[in-house]
C-alpha cells in the first residue's frame, strides 16, 4: 500500500516536474549564451495562456505547444532586444517582463466574449505505451506511464547536453557566454547567438506553461503558474548549468510540490508552505556550497559573462 503511494507520488512528481524542466532547460540555454532572463514566470504565463487558448480551439497538443512556445519566444524577443541591442540592465528588463507577461495572461484570460477561465481543452493526452508495459513493476508507472511530452522533454535534455558540450555550435554558445570578446574575435556573432538562445529560452517557458495549463490542470486561472517559473529559474542554478542534472533536479522540485499530499496519506503532516519553500532553500544551500569550494565553483558556476552586456567598443 505504502509502496504504491510512494510510487504514484514519484510518477506525479515527473508530471509536475515536466513544465519546470521545459522552462528550466530553456533558461539554461539562454544563460549559457550570457543572457539572464528573470522573466521566466511571465513568459510561462504569457506563452501558456495563448497555448491554452489554442488547445481549446483545436485538439492537437503539438499545435498548442508550438503556439505557446512561439508566443513565449516573442516575449523573450523583447528581453533580447532590450538586453542585447539596447544593453539595459537585464535584471530590470527581466522583472518588467514578468509584470508584462502576468498582465498579458490576466488580460487575455478575462477579456473577450469567451472567457478562458471557463474554457476547457478539446483533448487530453494518453500514455504512449500500452497497458502491459505500464503495469510492469516499478518501471511501469515511472518510465512507461507518461504522455509524449514527457518523453519529448527527456529527448530535449539529451539534445541540449549533446549540443552544448559535444558540438562546435555548442562550444560557440558557451564561448559567447564565457568570453564574448574572444568569441567575437574568432568570428562568432555574439548578438545573433544571444538573440537566438534567449528566444529558445522563451520557447521553453511558453511550452512549459502550455503543458501546465492545457494538460496538467486542463484549465486556466489567474496566476496558475504559482511560482513554477521562479522554480524553473532556480533549477538552472541548482543544476549547475548542466542539462542532465536539471532532469533530476526538476523531478526533485516536482516531488517537493507533491510531498505534502503524499506525507499526509502516509500519516505525517508537514505543512505545504514549508515544502513549497524547500526548492528555494535547496538552491541557496547548493549555491553557497559551490561557491565555498573553488574546485566545484570552477565546474558548476554561472557563465562568466552572465548578465553582462557586450559591446565591441567598451571592454
Amino acid at each position, binding site marked *: 500500500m505504502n509502496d504504491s503511494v510512494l510510487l504514484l507520488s514519484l510518477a506525479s512528481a515527473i508530471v509536475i516536474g515536466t513544465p519546470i524542466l521545459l522552462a528550466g532547460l530553456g533558461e539554461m540555454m539562454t544563460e549559457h549564451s550570457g543572457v539572464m532572463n528573470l522573466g521566466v514566470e511571465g513568459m510561462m504565463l504569457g506563452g501558456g495562456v495563448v497555448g491554452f487558448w489554442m488547445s481549446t480551439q483545436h485538439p492537437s497538443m503539438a499545435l498548442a505547444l508550438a503556439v505557446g512556445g512561439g508566443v513565449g519566444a516573442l516575449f523573450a524577443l523583447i528581453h533580447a532586444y532590450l538586453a542585447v541591442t539596447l544593453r539595459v540592465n537585464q535584471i530590470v528588463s527581466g522583472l518588467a517582463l514578468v509584470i508584462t507577461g502576468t498582465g498579458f495572461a490576466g488580460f487575455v484570460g478575462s477579456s473577450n466574449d469567451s472567457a478562458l477561465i471557463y474554457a476547457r481543452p478539446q483533448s487530453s493526452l494518453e500514455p504512449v505505451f500500452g497497458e502491459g508495459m505500464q503495469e510492469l513493476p516499478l518501471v511501469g508507472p515511472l518510465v512507461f506511464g507518461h504522455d509524449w511530452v514527457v518523453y519529448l522533454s527527456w529527448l530535449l535534455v539529451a539534445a541540449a547536453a549533446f549540443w552544448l558540450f559535444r558540438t562546435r555550435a555548442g562550444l560557440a554558445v558557451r564561448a559567447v557566454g564565457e568570453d564574448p570578446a574572444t568569441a567575437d574575435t574568432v568570428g562568432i556573432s555574439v548578438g545573433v547567438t544571444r538573440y537566438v538562445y534567449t528566444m529558445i529560452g522563451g520557447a521553453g517557458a511558453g511550452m512549459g506553461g502550455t503543458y501546465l495549463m492545457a494538460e496538467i490542470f486542463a484549465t486556466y486561472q489567474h496566476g496558475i503558474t504559482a511560482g513554477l517559473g521562479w522554480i524553473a529559474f*532556480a533549477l538552472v542554478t541548482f543544476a549547475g548549468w548542466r542539462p542532465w542534472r536539471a532532469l533530476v533536479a526538476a523531478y526533485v522540485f516536482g516531488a517537493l510540490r507533491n510531498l505534502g499530499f503524499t506525507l499526509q496519506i502516509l500519516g505525517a503532516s508537514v505543512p505545504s508552505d514549508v515544502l513549497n519553500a524547500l526548492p528555494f532553500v535547496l538552491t541557496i544551500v547548493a549555491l553557497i556550497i559551490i561557491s565555498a569550494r573553488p574546485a566545484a565553483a570552477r565546474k558548476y558556476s554561472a557563465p562568466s559573462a552572465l548578465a553582462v552586456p557586450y559591446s565591441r567598443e567598451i571592454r
Partner: protein
Amino acid sequence: MSLPLGAFELTVERQQIPSRLVRMAAPTASVAFGLLVGAVIIWAAGQDPILAYTEMARKGFGGRLALTGTLVLATPLILTGLAAVVAFRMKIWNIGAEGQLILGAVASSGLGLWLGDRGIGGPVGIVLMLAAGAGAGALWAALAALPRAYLNTDEVISTLMLNFVALGIMNYLIFSSFSHWRDPSRATFPVGRFLDDSMFLHRFTGRLHIGLFIALAAAGVLWWGLRSTRWGFEVWVTGDSPRAALYSGMRVDRKILSVLMVSGAFAGLGGGIEVGGVLGNLDPRALSLGVGFAGIVVAALARLSPLGVIPVAILVASFTNARPGLQVLGIPSEIVTLLEGILFLCIVGGEWFLRNALRLQRRAAGPGPGPVEVETAPS
C-alpha cells in the same frame, strides 16, 4: 556604428553626459510610446483607450480620496525603491526586497502584538514596532550578504530565492499553524490577529497615514547619506571599481554587508509600515503583491536617485489605485498590470538614448560644411 541615408549618414556615438533636452525627452517619449502600444492593445480588445486612460488618471489623482489612496499605495513602493537604489548604486543586485519586506511585516506584527498584549502602545510602541521591521529586513538581507561578502556567492540568485522562503514563512505563520500571529478565534478561515488600536500609525485624512512621511524622510536621509557622507562616497567608489576601493584601503566585504543590510532595512521598514498603517495584521493575501519587484523597476526608472524614486513610485501607485475603477467600467483590471509592464519595458529601453547620441552627418566623401549635429529625440 553608422547607417547611410542618402547624402547623410546616421551615426551612433556613446555619450557620458546627455543634454538636458534628451534627459527630458527620452522618458517622455518612452512613456508616450508605451501608452500608444497599450492603446492599441486596449483597442484590439474592443475597449475605448481614451476612456480607459482618462479613467485611470481620474481614479489615480482626481480628488482627495483618489490622491490619498495613491499616496498610501506609493509608501511601500518608495521604500522598496530606496532599497534597490542603495544596493544597485554599488552594483549589488538585491532583488530580495519582496522577502525583506515580508520579514519586516512578520517582525513588526509580531512585536506589535506582543507589546499590545502588555499595554505598551503609543509612540514608543510604534517606534519599537517599526524598528523591529527594519531590523528584520536587514537581518534577512544579511543571509544573502554574508555569503556574498565572504564567499563571493552570487547575490542575484540568493536574494531572489530568499523571497520565496520568506513567503513560505509568512504563509506558515498564518495558514498552517496556530502561531502568535494568527487569530485563534478564526479556525476555518485563517487570518492574522489584529494589533491593538494604540499600535496603529497616525492617520491624517482618508487612509493617508504618517508612513508616507517616514518614507519621504527615508528618501531624504538616503540622499544625504549617499551624497555627503564617507559611507556614501565609499559606496560610490566600490560600485565603480571594487579593486580601486580595495587598494585604497576600503573594507569591501564590510561595505557589501552594510549596503545589503541597509537595503534590507528600507524594505523591512516598508513591511512594518504596511502592517501598522494599512493592514493592522499580518495578511499574506495583501503582502504578496510584487511591491518588491516593482520597487526595482521604480529605482531603475528613477535612475537610482533616492529623491527621483518618490515621483516614480507615486505614478506607478496611481496605476494600481485605478484598478478597481476600471473593473467597474467593464475594462478588465488586468490591463493595468499589462500596461505597467509595457511602460516599464519602454522606459527602460528609452534609457538607451541617454547613453548614446544619434548624429546626422553629411557623408565624409561629400563636400560642404562640417558635420551638422542634430541630436534627435527617441522615436
